[in-house]
C-alpha cells in the first residue's frame, strides 16, 4: 500500500516511512488473521504482478502437497507491509528480493554486486535478527537493466553495457524520471561505466516503451523480468561490470512456521532455481499483456514443470480478477473503502482545524486593513508552496515527522486561505446600508457581527469551506508520499509501477470523494443559509 513496489521507491522519505507503516499494519490487522488455526498457512505477496504470481505458485504447491489449508493474502502493500505482517505472524511467508532485504529491511549502507554474497548476508541476518528463513531462490533476478532496440543492438553488435561506450554519442535514451535522477540510477551508472550518451531524456515509463518502438529513442531502463521485454523487440544489455545490485527472489518464511511444519521447507524448495528471468518475463507478460489470471498462469507453469498434477481439482481463481478494469476495481473494493476512510479522516481533521482558525481570524481582520493584508498575504504565500515541498517541510518539524500529523498540518495550511478569504469577503460584502441600519438601531458591535454580518456571510464562508475541502481531498492524495495513507497510496504505487489501473483505482475514488463532499457541503450550505436569503 504505502510503499508500493518498495525497492523501486527508495526515496529517503519512503525509506523512513517504515515505522509508520508498521504501526498502521499493527492497527489494521484484521482480527480473523490474529485468530489463526494451527493447520493453516497464510502466504503473502506484494502488490505487483510478479510477486503475486510467485505467491500463487507457493500457495498451489503447499495446497497440493501438504494437508495445510492455505490462504493467499495477495497484493499486500509493499515490502514494509509484508515484512511487518510476517514478523507479527499475520502471514507465514512471502516472496522477497535479496536487494530489497539488503537495502529496505536491513538498511545496509553499502552497495553489493555479488548475488551470492548478497543472498548469504540477508539469509544470515534475517535468521539472527528476526528468526526468518530465506529458502532456496527461484532463480530469477529482477534487477534494473538497460534495454536496447533489438535491431539497433544487433546492427551495432551491442550485448553489454560496456559495448555502448564507443557508440554513446549516437545513442538517445528515454529513462524513467526516477532512474534519471537517482544516484543508483543513470548518474551512478554513467560514472561507474564512464558512459556518456548523446541524449538522455526523462520519460514516463510506458511512453518510453512506445518511443523506443517508434525508433525515437534507442535505450530504455527496464526491470530484468518485465513482461514488456517480451512485447517489444528489446535486447536486455548485460550488466557486465555489475553496477546494478542483485534482486534475486526467494520465499522467506517464519522460523516458527518451519518448525511447526517440518515438511514445508522441502515443498517450498521444489521451486528452487526453476524460474529463470526469461520464464518470469513470460509469466509476467501473460498476466500483464494478455490479461490472464495470476493463479491460472501459476498453475500452468507448475503443471508444465511437472510439479503439479494437471488433473488436480481447479479451485476458482479468487486472485486473478485482472480481467477487466471493473473486476479489478471490484477486487479492491474493501481496500478502497479503507483508504477512502483514511482519506476523509485526514481531510476532515485539516478542514475542521482550518475552520476553527480561519473563520475567527477572518472576523478579526475584517476591520483592519493591515491585519487583512498580513493574514491574506501569508495564507496566499503558503498556498503557492508546492504541496510536496510543504509536506517535505512538515517532515522536518519535530513532533510532526512522517506521520498523519504532518499531512494534516499541510492540508490545514492549504485549507486556511480559501476559508479566510471567503470569511473576509463575506463579512465585507454585507450591504453597508444594512450595517448602518443595524448600528443605528442600537446593536452592539458583537450583535452586529453575530446577528447580521455572520448570518449574511454564511453562504460565502461555506463556499470557502467547500473550496477548502475539495482542495484538501485533492492534496491529501499526496499524503501517501509521507506514509500517511489515503487514496494516494494506489496512485503513488501505480505511478511507480506504471500501472494505470492502480492509479485510477485511487484517482477515481478521490475524484468521486471530492464531488461527493462538494455536493454534501452544498446541502449543508443550503441548510445553514438563512431562509430569507435562499432565492
Amino acid at each position: 500500500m504505502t510503499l508500493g513496489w518498495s525497492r523501486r521507491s527508495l526515496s529517503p522519505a519512503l525509506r523512513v516511512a517504515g515505522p509508520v507503516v508498521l504501526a498502521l499494519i499493527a492497527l489494521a490487522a484484521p482480527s480473523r488473521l490474529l485468530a489463526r488455526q494451527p493447520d493453516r498457512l497464510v502466504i503473502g505477496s506484494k502488490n505487483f504482478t510478479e510477486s503475486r504470481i510467485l505467491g500463487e505458485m507457493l500457495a498451489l504447491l503447499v495446497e497440493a502437497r501438504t494437508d495445510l489449508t492455505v490462504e493467499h493474502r495477495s497484493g499486500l502493500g509493499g515490502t514494509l507491509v509484508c515484512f511487518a505482517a510476517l514478523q507479527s505472524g499475520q502471514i507465514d511467508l512471502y516472496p522477497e528480493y535479496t536487494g530489497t532485504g539488503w537495502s529496505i529491511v536491513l538498511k545496509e549502507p553499502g552497495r553489493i554486486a555479488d548475488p551470492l554474497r548478497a543472498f548469504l548476508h540477508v539469509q544470515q541476518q534475517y535468521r539472527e535478527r528476526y528468526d526468518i528463513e530465506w529458502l532456496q531462490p527461484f532463480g530469477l533476478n529482477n534487477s534494473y537493466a538497460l534495454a536496447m532496440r533489438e535491431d539497433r543492438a544487433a546492427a551495432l553488435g551491442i550485448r553489454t553495457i560496456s559495448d555502448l561506450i564507443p557508440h554513446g554519442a549516437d545513442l538517445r535514451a528515454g529513462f524513467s524520471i526516477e532512474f534519471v535522477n537517482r544516484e543508483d540510477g543513470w548518474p551512478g551508472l554513467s560514472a561507474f561505466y564512464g558512459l556518456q550518451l548523446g541524449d538522455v531524456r526523462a520519460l514516463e515509463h510506458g511512453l518510453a516503451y512506445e518511443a523506443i518502438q517508434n525508433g525515437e529513442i534507442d535505450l530504455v531502463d527496464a526491470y530484468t523480468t518485465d513482461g514488456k521485454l517480451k512485447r517489444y523487440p528489446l535486447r536486455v544489455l548485460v550488466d557486465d561490470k555489475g553496477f546494478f545490485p542483485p534482486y534475486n527472489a526467494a520465499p522467506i518464511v517464519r522460523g516458527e512456521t518451519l518448525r511447526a511444519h517440518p515438511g514445508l521447507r522441502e515443498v517450498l524448495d521444489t521451486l528452487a532455481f526453476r524460474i529463470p528471468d526469461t520464464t518470469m518475463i513470460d509469466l509476467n507478460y501473460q498476466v500483464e499483456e494478455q490479461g490472464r489470471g495470476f493463479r491460472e498462469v501459476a498453475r500452468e507453469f507448475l503443471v508444465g514443470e511437472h510439479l503439479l498434477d494437471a488433473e488436480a481439482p481447479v479451485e476458482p481463481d479468487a486472485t486473478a480478477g485482472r480481467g477487466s478494469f471493473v473486476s479489478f476495481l471490484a477486487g479492491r473494493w474493501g481496500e478502497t473503502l479503507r483508504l477512502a476512510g483514511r482519506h476523509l479522516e485526514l481531510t476532515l481533521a485539516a478542514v475542521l482545524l482550518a475552520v476553527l482558525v480561519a473563520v475567527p481570524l477572518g472576523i478579526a481582520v475584517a476591520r483592519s486593513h493591515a491585519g487583512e493584508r498580513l493574514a491574506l498575504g501569508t495564507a496566499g504565500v503558503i498556498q503557492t508552496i508546492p504541496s510536496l515541498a510543504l509536506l517535505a517541510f512538515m517532515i522536518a518539524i519535530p513532533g510532526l515527522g512522517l506521520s498523519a500529523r504532518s499531512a494534516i498540518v499541510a492540508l490545514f495550511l492549504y485549507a486556511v486561505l480559501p476559508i479566510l478569504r471567503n470569511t473576509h469577503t463575506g463579512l465585507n460584502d454585507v450591504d453597508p446600508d444594512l450595517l448602518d441600519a443595524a448600528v443605528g438601531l442600537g446593536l452592539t458591535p458583537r450583535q452586529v457581527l453575530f446577528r447580521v454580518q455572520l448570518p449574511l456571510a454564511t453562504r460565502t464562508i461555506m463556499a470557502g469551506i467547500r473550496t477548502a475541502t475539495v482542495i484538501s481531498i485533492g492534496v491529501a492524495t499526496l499524503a501517501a508520499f509521507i506514509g500517511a495513507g489515503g487514496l494516494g497510496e494506489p496512485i503513488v504505487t501505480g505511478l511507480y509501477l506504471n500501472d494505470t489501473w492502480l492509479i485510477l483505482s485511487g484517482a477515481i475514488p478521490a475524484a468521486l470523494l471530492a464531488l461527493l463532499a462538494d455536493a454534501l457541503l452544498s446541502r449543508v450550505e443550503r441548510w445553514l443559509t438563512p431562509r430569507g436569503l435562499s432565492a
Partner: protein
Amino acid sequence: MIRLEHVSRTFAGTGGAPVHAVRDLSLEIVAGETLALVGPSGCGKTTTLRLINRLIEPSSGRITVGGEDAAAMDPVRLRRRMGYVVQSGGLFPHLTIGRNVGLLCELEGWPREKTRARVDELLSLVHLAPDEFRARFPRELSGGQRQRVGVARALALDPEILLMDEPFGALDPLTRASLQQEFVELERLVAKTIVIVSHDLAEAFLLGDRLAVLNAGQLVQVGTPDDVRSQPANDWVRAFVAGAAPAPVGA
C-alpha cells in the same frame, strides 16, 4: 428635547483638505415636533441626523438629548432611545418580518410573548396584517411594505425620538404619496419627536412641523413651512423653495 450647539463636523477630503460637512450648526428640536431637515444633496442634512444618534461624532460642538450630553452616553443606549429608519427600510434579509420588527425587543431580553404581541401591534399600526406578514421575508414584500416594516421596527422599543433618513426616497411616486399620507396619521398616533431628512421639499412641507433648511453644511433657516415659504431668509432659500435652487455654494 434635542439640542445641537455649534456643532461642526469635518472630514478629510480628497487631497487631504478638510471638508466641512456641517459647520457651526445650532438647532433645537422640541419634544413632540416633527422637524424636517431639507436642502440639496451634500448640504449636510444626513450628517446632521447621524450626529444625533452618534453614527458620526462631531468634530466640535455639543449635542444634548433630553438635557444629557450625548457624548457622555453609551451610544447603544442612546440609539435605543431613538428609532432609526433608513431609505428602502434597511430590513435584514435573513430575518422574517416579525423578527426584523422584534429584533430590538429580543436583544433587550423581552419575554417571547411580549415581543410577539408588540410585533403584531406595530405591524397593525403600519397597516400590515400581522398574520399575513409576520413569517414572510423582506424579499417577499414590495418596496412600500418594506418601508412600513422599517418604520414599525424603529418604533419597537417605543422610543421618544424617531430619526428618519430619506424614508420615502426610494419609492415610486404613488406609493410615496400614500405612505406620506399614512405617516401624517401615524405622527398623530405616536406623538414622537421626529427628525426626518428629505431632499423633497413637498414632502418636508407635508410632514414637517418645522423645517431646517441647510446649504453647504450651514443652517440657513429654521421655521414652519409657512415661514419658509412666505419669509425666506435669503434669495437662495427663495429660489430653493421655488424649486429652482442654484447649486450649493462651494459644490
